[in-house]
């Protein structure tokens, strides 16, 4: 049973399209995150949700919209995809924002390629 699962693992799409990446965790964690890993492998936080409420919203284009229907799910919707959006997107979870001292559990990542 995968603790944090992301779908799809690979996504190839054309510029201008809208796409979604889904994330689910079965660890009972309260907090979920989206990170972007660029071509140089740099990991940068995009969003964080705690129990369905947004707690971190870094400076990302508003074409990116996270949605958390419940605390076990955090989806990422991207509108009007651009070439620069090509990256690996990681979902992660932690027991809570005050309990991230044990680190995150990561999903396996979604490699998004925009052509």
């Amino acid at each position, binding site marked *: 049973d995968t603790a944090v699962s992301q779908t799809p693992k690979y996504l190839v799409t054309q510029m201008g399209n809208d796409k979604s990446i889904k994330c689910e965790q079965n660890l009972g964690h309260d907090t979920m995150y989206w990170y972007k890993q660029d071509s140089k*492998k740099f990991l940068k936080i995009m969003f964080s949700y705690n129990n369905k409420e947004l707690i971190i919203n870094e400076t990302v284009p508003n074409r990116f919209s996270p949605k958390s229907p419940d605390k076990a799910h955090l989806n990422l919707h991207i509108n009007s995809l651009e070439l620069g959006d090509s990256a690996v997107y990681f979902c992660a979870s*932690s027991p809570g*924002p005050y309990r991230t001292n044990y*680190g995150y559990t990561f999903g396996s990542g979604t490699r998004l390629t925009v052509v």
Partner: protein
Amino acid sequence: AQTVTQSQPEMSVQEAETVTLSCTYDTSESDYYLFWYKQPPSRQMILVIRQEAYKQQNATENRFSVNFQKAAKSFSLKISDSQLGDAAMYFCAYFSYSGGGADGLTFGKGTHLIIQP
């Protein structure tokens, strides 16, 4: 904002040898946590080791150990008896409760570790 610096973009070591990856960080906090994550070619992010800043004892996990120097704000990872499976990107990460923990983990830019057979 806290920053994490990994000054070695790439390191190479012979199999069975020992290698040390460097990490420094900038913080004004006294209580925080440090991590090393491994990212093999499979892309999966794997927690290797964790250190609590208030503990003076260096963390150890099998062949992996850290040298935590709080005053110098340094947190290096030592891998003993390197194995081919250790080849990966290694990321140093920092977490503190400042801001209520809302900032999550801050990562360094990573060190690509090559193991020479």
